[in-house]
């Protein structure tokens, strides 16, 4: 449709330079809003247009305004949940650390503006995980996975409890005790992240990671997820954090912290990807420092290509074979990183069997 060759490229250009939307035809707006919604960056697009004082024609502007309104509602809801978590977990006297969207929103970071999210993620010390689960259940959260296999999968192998749903509000809470699965190739020390957190006003028990760790977590999450539904959104999170904090002192700390957490390689790859795909400002010497931190290794060009292709899937109206294959490649890679081969084989065999039984498509669509 139109003269736009790639809708994801057009979307990225419009986010980076909103003035490009000036004079867009109605079908052009249809395509842009569709792509932004598919990539889950509609709120971000609305925010960026508003920041430069651009108003779309009335019909697409309704979609943009509604996305902003939903974003404001979600920030309010996150505040509510943070207070509820404070009440539920305060007696345990442990650090309860908000991650990702909830952390950006509660810390008031610029990257939270217009960002839409679903679940709330928290990180707690592994030693307290049993008490945390019990207290949350008493306070009205229930496990969303009732299947015995899923329960065991999460508890034995993963870095989080099975998702919990608040029975009254329907909000979903992911309780992590580390940032990557227990069976993963990389085993960052979550205690370090828990130790170096920042306080929030009025919420003595709730904390947020320092910006360095927020950035590292955001990158690691993107590079270990099996499905890139929010890939572009995550890249813009990375971009937003870097633009807000990226002075020289910050970069020193990012390199240092990545090394300490045994995550230099994935962070290096993620920065390269953000730089290449959306033009995130990463100084050349930072890449050099990462190479040094990872024993002189460069980022794998194959991996970069895989992600660049896979990011188009779902954003483009018609996806070619290459992005489909790349998405599958990332799915396989994520599982490969997640657990050793014998566990992986067992897990995938079980999942495939269940799928046949339920007549489900392999990659379910999003609502």
């Amino acid at each position: 449709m139109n003269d736009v060759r790639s809708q994801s490229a057009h979307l990225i250009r419009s986010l980076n330079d909103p003035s490009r939307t000036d004079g867009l035809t109605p079908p052009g707006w249809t395509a842009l809003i569709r792509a932004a919604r598919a990539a889950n960056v509609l709120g971000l697009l609305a925010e960026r247009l508003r920041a430069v004082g651009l108003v779309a024609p009335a019909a697409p502007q309704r979609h943009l305004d509604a996305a902003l309104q939903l974003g404001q509602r979600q920030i309010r809801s996150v505040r509510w949940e943070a207070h509820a978590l404070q009440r539920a977990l305060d007696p345990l006297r442990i650090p309860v650390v908000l991650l990702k969207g909830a952390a950006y929103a509660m810390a008031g970071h610029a990257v939270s503006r217009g960002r839409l999210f679903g679940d709330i993620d928290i990180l707690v010390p592994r030693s307290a995980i049993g008490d945390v689960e019990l207290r949350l259940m008493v306070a009205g959260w229930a496990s969303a996975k009732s299947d015995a296999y899923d329960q065991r999968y999460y508890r034995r192998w993963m870095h989080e409890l099975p998702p919990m749903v608040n029975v009254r509000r329907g909000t979903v809470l992911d309780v992590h005790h580390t940032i990557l699965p227990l069976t993963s190739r990389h085993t960052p020390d979550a205690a370090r992240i828990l130790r170096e957190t920042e306080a929030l006003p009025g919420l003595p028990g709730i904390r947020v990671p320092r910006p360095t760790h927020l950035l590292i977590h955001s990158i690691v999450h993107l590079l270990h997820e099996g499905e890139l539904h929010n890939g572009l959104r995550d890249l813009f999170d990375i971009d937003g954090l870097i633009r807000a904090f990226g002075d020289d002192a910050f970069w020193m700390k990012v390199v240092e912290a990545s090394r300490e957490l045994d995550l230099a390689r994935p962070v290096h790859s993620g920065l390269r990807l953000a730089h290449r795909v959306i033009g995130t400002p990463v100084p050349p010497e930072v890449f050099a420092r990462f190479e040094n931190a990872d024993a002189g290794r460069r980022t794998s060009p194959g991996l970069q290509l895989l992600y660049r292709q896979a990011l188009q899937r779902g954003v483009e109206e018609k996806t070619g074979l290459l992005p489909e294959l790349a998405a599958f490649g990332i799915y396989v890679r994520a599982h490969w990183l997640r657990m050793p081969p014998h566990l992986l084989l067992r897990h995938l065999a079980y999942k495939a069997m269940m799928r046949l039984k339920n007549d489900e498509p392999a990659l379910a669509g999003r609502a």
Partner: protein
Amino acid sequence: MPYRQLAQVIRLIDIVLRLAPVTVRVRSPFRSVARHIERFYGGLPADSALNRDDPFVDFDIRLVGGANWRRWFRPQARFLLDESDPFLPLPASQAAPLFEWGLNWCFATRPLGYLVMHAAVVAQGGDALILPGFPGAGKSTLCASLTFAEGWRLLSDELAILEPETGELQPNPRPISVKNESLRIVSAFPGATLGPAYSDTRKGTVAHVAPPAASVDAAEQTARCRWVVFPRFTADAPTTCEEITRAEAFTRIAEQSFNRDRMGEAGFHAICAMLDGARCFEIGYGSTADGLGLIRDITSERTAQ
């Protein structure tokens, strides 16, 4: 144009419809969907290909066949909005009602800044009557009766669409979906033309009734809520009518809203503002004639005051 001729033969449909307050693109290979749209939405346009002057599309809808082997074996119909596939597939014979249900779902879930409630809305001039819909309460039958027997303008038989900025209700006059026993009552009304009946759906037997042409012509004319009536039909029950407070009406109408919570403060204020200019009633009745009588009493007080 060979493409158009081919499209006519296999009834491939690709059409952009203005269904106030939105613009919808519908694509489908199902004959039944093409016929449904022809019958209820004014026929196929001369050229359905998109060009630069085409309008902005709010909902890009496709009704497609089942995945993999379900395309042929016990064929299914799926409703897609953009790339998302929100429902379980239905038997292919129900593709047309699936289109109507799916479209309602689009209004209920796609954030567009409208507060959307599950209710029938009819109007006289600019004064609207809202009938919130508890399942089985008789909302659809009463709505069809008011529309065809009493000359009210149909805004919608399923969705009350409120614009919070202005406090006005947006019409969305589309086919009324009539179920089971109501089919006999509604088909007797003069001017009511029914489409095919779809049996064995989740809601029993369903047929669609075309909205009156006058209601469709006035689809861009908004109305203001003057009355909220919660109907309760119980066969052969005595007639009751009770005025209820706005606070009570608020809680009950909020339950029937799809997105009040997601709209946060704006949703709350929108319902408050809507009820500020309205009187709210609860009615119980045992026959459609009794129900219509009560509505007549309630709404004629406007002239008496």
